[in-house]
């Protein structure tokens, strides 16, 4: 059963076809699959419909800057304390990408509808927001169980692929996600799920009573590849921290297209294929 285990992040990225609806997880907590993102850019993926769950940072910004994205459906793309996401801003302003503005709980609700196999999920709030006004896939309906009670019906989000980084997986393809329960929703909603992990667990995660509750069974997983420091320059809780120098360096360099190209060169193209590890020390900050 270990054909589910791939050699590296590049082998994983090879499984993402051009044009895929790809769901990626927010950067906080270290579950953004950055090594796989570098590999996606190296492989030259095109026309992605990116769904950020519910937001993104460096990951979406780099994919957009590298020309991999046709559409981004998001509640926010930001570098957080390092500032606005420069490639995202440029691409939206120029019309180079289509942006579908959403709001965090609507992204979750859409994925939960996908997870349950229902066509839509109603959600409170939202009414009167310009988000709703610009979304022709939302409907304001009457709550069928009460009088004069409008509510927004959100269509199910069914990504072709969910992509994230996890602290732990096993040889059977089971993936331990720790506190990030939203990754389960992503995996359930998506047609398949690709995962990089820090390391492999000996034995079967589903047979460990303390780890099984936060484990996504292999049934949902298309492929797993080990990528040590695979979230860097973001950190992973309890394992390594955000690389503030690298994140600040990106925020600075990506302000211009030339700077972004230089970043790609040194970070994505200019490295050995399995050289994500140790990247941070090798390239000094700003």
């Amino acid at each position: 059963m270990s054909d589910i285990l791939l050699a590296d992040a590049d082998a994983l990225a090879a499984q993402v076809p051009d044009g895929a609806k790809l769901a990626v997880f927010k950067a906080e907590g270290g579950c953004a699959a950055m090594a796989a993102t570098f590999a996606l850019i190296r492989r030259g993926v095109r026309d992605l419909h990116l769904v950020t769950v519910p937001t993104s940072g460096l990951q979406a910004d780099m994919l957009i800057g590298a020309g991999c994205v046709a559409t981004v459906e998001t509640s926010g793309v930001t570098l957080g304390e390092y500032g606005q996401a420069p490639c995202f801003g440029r691409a939206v302003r120029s019309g180079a990408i289509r942006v579908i503005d959403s709001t965090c709980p609507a992204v979750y609700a859409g994925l939960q509808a996908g997870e349950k196999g229902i066509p839509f999920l109603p959600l409170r709030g939202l009414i009167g927001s310009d988000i709703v006004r610009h979304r022709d896939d939302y409907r304001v309906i009457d709550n069928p169980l009460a009088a004069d009670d409008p509510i927004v019906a959100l269509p199910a989000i069914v990504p072709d692929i969910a992509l994230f980084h996890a602290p732990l997986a096993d040889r059977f393809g089971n993936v331990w996600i720790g506190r990030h329960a939203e990754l389960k929703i992503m995996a359930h909603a998506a047609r398949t799920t690709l995962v990089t992990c820090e390391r492999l667990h000996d034995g079967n995660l589903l047979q460990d009573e303390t780890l099984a509750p936060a484990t996504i069974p292999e049934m949902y997983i298309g492929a797993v590849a080990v990528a040590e420091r695979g979230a860097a320059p973001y950190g992973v809780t309890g394992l390594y921290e955000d690389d503030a120098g690298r994140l600040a360096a990106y925020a600075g360099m990506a302000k211009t297209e030339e700077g972004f190209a230089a970043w790609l060169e040194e970070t994505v193209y200019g490295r050995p294929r399995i050289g994500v590890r140790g990247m941070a020390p090798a390239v000094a900050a700003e």
Partner: protein
Amino acid sequence: MAGDYALEELLIATVAGLLEGCGHIAVGVSSPIPGSAALLRRHRDREAGRRTRVSIIGTTIPAYRTDGGVDLFDSAGQGRVDAFFLSGGQIDGRANINLVGVGEGYPQQKVRWSGSFGSAYLYFMVPKVILFRLEHSRRTMVEAVDFVSAPGTSPPNVHRPGGPYALVTDLCLFRFDRRRARFSLASVHPGHTVGEVRDNTGFDFDIPETVPETAPPDAETLAVLRETVAPDIANPYPNFARRVWGARGVSGGVSGAA
């Protein structure tokens, strides 16, 4: 800044006052002053024998945490979040907020910000939403926002247990009257004037005949901030704590993302 306290300490104390009676205060990302205010509120309530919960997204401290994901929004939907903070690149006189961009021709506006995050939901569901914006100018306080990330008010048939309660800036404190959809100046921070507020605000608002000065933090409050709040808030915001409180703010906390 005025006398023997920092502006941040004034704002923290002001916001903590607004949070009175909130059993569960949630604080979003990149919000060190609201976070500190929530911790100050919790400290005061604890001294008074009341239990107040604080959830600061993205930290493991204090004791109650939320991951800022589905749980946060669902618990707000359940009515379990009493206070939250929002900001806006633009805020208008009807308390509409804009986190998306500036200019005509959406989506290709001339300025594009990150996006609306959870505002379009939490603004409806959390009873006491405090707007917080440190840059008080005609650029930020506008007559009408260019994109409504979340509306300040809703028609009466729209389910809306929550909404805007106050707006805190670097110049003043506004209260918001939801029925009239209008801000009213509640106090002006020491060192600033009503005229300065009016000149820097792009929207109309009510000005009572007498507008008090925002009460500066007393010695007991400053002591709590510096001894108790500073080390706690240094966990999610080490740079903020260091800037406001120096080494005191960092020594007690666990720094970084861990």
